[in-house]
C-alpha cells in the first residue's frame, strides 16, 4: 500500500507524525496520527514533595505552564484540605485571565490565523503573521506584540516569573499586589478588551463576510458530531479557573456534570501500540473506536466545546458575541471544527473582560493571601480549563505530603481521538483518486488539526512564509515512487 508521511507535523507543541495509507486506486485507506514522545511525568513525580508539583508539572508545557500551575495548586488545596483566601482565589483567576489573553492571541494571530485571514489557498509565502499584518495593517502587528508583552508583565507581577510562574501554594498564593500594580493591570485589561473586540472585527471582516470561508467552516469535511466538555460555574457559564466539568451530548443535552474528585467515574483512557499518547473517552458511553456520534465515547474539549457545554458567557460583551456566533452557525451545539477559531476569540474577549472585573475588585490588593494548612494531606484532584482543553491533576501522597501516585489528563490529550478523526476525514475527503496532491491540499489537511490549537506558539517576523512540506510516496515494496515538495530550496 502506498504511504504518505508528514514528519514532523509542524506548528504544534511537541512532536507528531501523520501517515496516510493509499489504496491502489489512490483513495485513502486509513490515516494515523502518531505522537512519538513521552517524558513520564506520571512516574517521576513519585517521591517529590507535593508543593513542588505546581512548578514541576508546569514544565509539561511552556506555552501553558499557568494552566498546569493552577490545576496543581488547586489539587494541593484539596490535598491539604485547605481553602484558599478569597483574595488568593481572585489573584489566581486574575493571572489566569491574563494568561488566556496572551495564549489565545498567540494562537489566533501567529499560528492558525494566517490560514483564515490569508485563506487556505493564499500563496504559502503570505500565509503567516507578516501576511496578516500586510493585509490588516502594521498597527495590528504592534497591537499583538504589545498585548502579549503587557499580559506577560501581569503574569510576572502576580506570579513571579513571565514563563513558569512560582506563586501557587495550598491555601493561597505567595505574593500580594499593591495599588500601583493594580492600577497598571486595570489599564492593561482595558486595552486588552479593545484588542479582543478588534480581533473579533478582524475575524468578521476577513472570514465571516467571505462566503468561501464560511462555506469551508460549515462544510461536512470539517464537521464531527461528538460530545463536548467544559468547566462551568454555578450558573453554567464558562469559567476557566473553577467550577464543575459539564459534558453535553451531540444534541446539546447535558450528559453529565461532575466535581473534580469524581473524574474517574467518567473518564477512561484507551491505549494503542503505535503511539505514546493515550485516548481519553467517556466511560459511560464506552470506547467504540475513532467514530462520531452519540454512541461513541469520543468527546472534544476545545474553546468551541466549552461554549457548547455552557449556557452562556459570564461577561456582557462576550455573551453578545456568543449569541451572534450561534445564530450564524444555526444553533447549539456547533459541530464545525473550524468554528473553534471563532470561539477562541470570544473566549479572548471574556478573558479580557474578566481580567478587568477582577482588577477592579476591592479585595484584589488585600495582603490576606494565604491560609496555612493544618490537616494531614492525603488525596486531591484539581481541574482547570487549559486553553487546549480540560486539564486534570490527581495526586495521592503519604502523610508528609510526598507524592505516592500521580495521574494527569492533559488538555490536548482529551482531543487526541478527535484530532485523529479530523485529519483522517480531511484526508479522505480531499485525497481522491485522480486528484493531484498539491500544497494547498496538504495545507487543508493541516487546517483540520490546527483549530485544536496543539500547544505551541510560533513565528517571528522572519517567517519565510512558505509551507515547506515534503511528501514521499512509496510503493508496496517500499521503493520511492515520487517526491512532492514545496518551498524547499
Amino acid at each position, binding site marked *: 500500500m502506498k504511504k504518505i508521511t508528514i514528519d*514532523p507535523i*509542524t*506548528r504544534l*507543541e511537541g512532536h507528531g507524525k501523520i*501517515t496516510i495509507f493509499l489504496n491502489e486506486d489512490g483513495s485513502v485507506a*486509513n490515516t*494515523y496520527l*502518531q505522537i512519538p*514522545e*513521552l*517524558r*513520564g511525568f*506520571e*512516574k*517521576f513525580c*513519585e*517521591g*517529590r514533595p507535593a508543593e*513542588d508539583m505546581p512548578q514541576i508539572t508546569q*514544565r509539561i*508545557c*511552556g*506555552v501553558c505552564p499557568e494552566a498546569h500551575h493552577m490545576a496543581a495548586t488547586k489539587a494541593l488545596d484539596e490535598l491539604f484540605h485547605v481553602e484558599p483566601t478569597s483574595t488568593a482565589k481572585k489573584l489566581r483567576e486574575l493571572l489566569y485571565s491574563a494568561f488566556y489573553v496572551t495564549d489565545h492571541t498567540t494562537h489566533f494571530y501567529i499560528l492558525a490565523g494566517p490560514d483564515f485571514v490569508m485563506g487556505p489557498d493564499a500563496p504559502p509565502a503570505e500565509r503567516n503573521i507578516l501576511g496578516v499584518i500586510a493585509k490588516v495593517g502594521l498597527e495590528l502587528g504592534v497591537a499583538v506584540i504589545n498585548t502579549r508583552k503587557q499580559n506577560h508583565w501581569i503574569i510576572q507581577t502576580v*506570579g*513571579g*516569573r*513571565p*514563563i*513558569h510562574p*512560582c506563586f501557587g*501554594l*495550598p*491555601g493561597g498564593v*505567595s505574593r500580594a499586589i499593591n495599588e500601583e500594580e493594580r492600577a497598571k493591570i486595570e489599564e492593561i485589561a482595558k486595552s486588552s478588551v479593545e484588542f479582543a473586540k478588534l480581533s473579533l472585527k478582524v475575524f468578521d471582516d476577513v472570514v465571516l463576510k467571505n462566503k468561501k470561508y464560511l462555506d469551508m467552516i460549515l462544510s461536512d469535511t470539517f464537521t464531527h458530531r461528538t460530545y463536548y466538555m467544559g468547566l462551568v460555574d454555578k450558573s453554567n457559564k464558562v469559567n476557566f479557573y473553577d467550577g464543575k466539568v459539564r459534558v453535553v451530548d451531540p444534541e446539546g443535552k447535558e450528559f453529565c456534570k461532575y466535581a473534580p474528585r469524581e*473524574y*474517574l467515574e467518567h473518564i*477512561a*483512557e484507551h*491505549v*494503542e*501500540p*503505535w503511539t*505514546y499518547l*493515550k485516548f481519553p473517552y467517556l*466511560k459511560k458511553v464506552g470506547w467504540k473506536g475513532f467514530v462520531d456520534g452519540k454512541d461513541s465515547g469520543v468527546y472534544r474539549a476545545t474553546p468551541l466545546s466549552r461554549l457548547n457545554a455552557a449556557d452562556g458567557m459570564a461577561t456582557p460583551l462576550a455573551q453578545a458575541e456568543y449569541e451572534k456566533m450561534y445564530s450564524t452557525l444555526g444553533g447549539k451545539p456547533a459541530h464545525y471544527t473550524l468554528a473553534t477559531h471563532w470561539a477562541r476569540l470570544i473566549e479572548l474577549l471574556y478573558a479580557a473582560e474578566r481580567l478587568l472585573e477582577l482588577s477592579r475588585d476591592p479585595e484584589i490588593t488585600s495582603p490576606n493571601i*494565604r491560609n*496555612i*494548612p493544618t490537616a494531614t494531606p492525603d488525596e486531591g484532584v484539581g481541574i482547570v480549563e487549559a486553553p487546549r482543553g480540560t486539564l486534570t491533576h*490527581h495526586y495521592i501522597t503519604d502523610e508528609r*505530603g510526598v507524592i505516592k501516585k500521580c495521574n494527569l489528563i492533559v488538555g490536548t490529550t482529551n482531543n487526541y481521538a478527535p484530532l485523529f478523526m479530523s485529519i483522517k476525514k480531511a484526508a479522505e475527503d480531499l485525497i481522491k483518486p485522480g486528484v493531484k496532491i498539491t500544497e494547498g491540499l496538504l495545507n487543508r489537511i493541516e487546517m483540520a488539526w490546527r483549530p485544536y490549537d496543539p*500547544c*505551541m*506558539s510560533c*513565528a*517571528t*517576523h*522572519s517567517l*519565510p512564509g512558505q509551507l*515547506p*512540506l515534503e511528501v514521499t510516496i512509496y510503493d508496496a515494496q517500499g521503493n520511492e515512487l515520487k517526491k512532492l515538495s514545496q518551498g524547499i530550496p
Partner: protein
Amino acid sequence: MAKLKIALYWAASCGGCEIAVLAIHEKILKLAEVADIVFWPVGMDFKYADVEKMPDKSVDVCLFNGAIRNEENEHMAHLLRAKSKVMIAYGSCAYEGCIPGLSNFYNRQLTFDRAYIETPSTDNPKKVYPQTKVKVPEGELELPELYDTVKTLAQTVDVDYFVPGCPPEEKTTWLALEALIEGKLPPKGTVISHSIKAVCDECPRKKEEKKVKKFYRPYEIIPDPERCLLEQGLLCYGIATRGGCGALCPQANMPCTGCYGPVEGVIDQGAHFLSALSSIIDSNDPEEIQKIIDDIPDPAGTFYRYSLPDSLLRRARIK
C-alpha cells in the same frame, strides 16, 4: 553582509524555551534584520529531510533546547551538529537535563508501567505497550525508541555554549543573541549569563547570619518579606545557583528552585547545594542533626531538580 542562518530545535522539552525566544518581544525585529531562520519545527514547516539536504556547517548557529530522551532527539542532535558551525545548548533541558531529567530516578519500564497500565484512568486490559514497530492492517508504523536514561546535549554531541535557565530569562537570551549578532562570542564552553556568582548576589533580601535549626516546607510558614529565605528555614537554592535571572522567585516570596544551574566552576550542582545546606545546620548534636535533616522530605529530588542527568551519578540505580 550575508544574513546569519539560525536553526532552532526542540528535543524532549516543554516549549518554554521557544516562548523564551519570543519573550525578547520587539528585539525580534533586530534579529530578523540580520538573521534568517532556516529550521524551527514549532514555527515553520521545514522538515527533517530539509536539514539533511543542507551542506555541513552551512548553518551559522543552532539553538538546541530540550534533553535527549529518545532516538529521534539523538539523531537530530547529531544531524544539527554536523550542519552547524556553532551549537548552543539553550535552556536547562539541553544544558543539564532539567525536569525531564527527573525520569532518571526510574527507567523506561517503570515509566511505561505507570503510564499504560497502573494509572487509574487507563483502560488497558490487554496490557498493550507502545512499540517501535507496529503492523497495522494497512502496513507498518514506527515510533522512535524511548531511552532508559535522559542525557544532556553535551553528553551527546560537542557543544560550544550553554544558555542557562528554565527557561532563560529575556535578558539572558538577549545576551546570547546579541553576542551572536555582533560576532563577539565568548570562549568556547562558556555558560552565557550576566553572572558567574550565586543568585544571592542579585537578591535584594537582607542577609544576616545563616544558622538554621529547622527547615520548613513553603506552605508551612509565611516568610518575612525582607529577610533571606534560607535564613528563615526555606530550602532556597539561591546559594548554589548561578545568577543572571534577577532573583525573581525570592522576590515573589518563593524560594529559588535552582533553574539556572550551578555557579561557575561547580561540577555537580546537587552535591554543591547539599554541602552548603549542611554547613548552615545549627547543631553539633547527631540526634538533633538527624531531626533537622528529616525536615527535608526529598533531598535527591530537590537538590537534583534540574540537574540529575548532568550530575556525577547521572541517574538512580534501580535494582
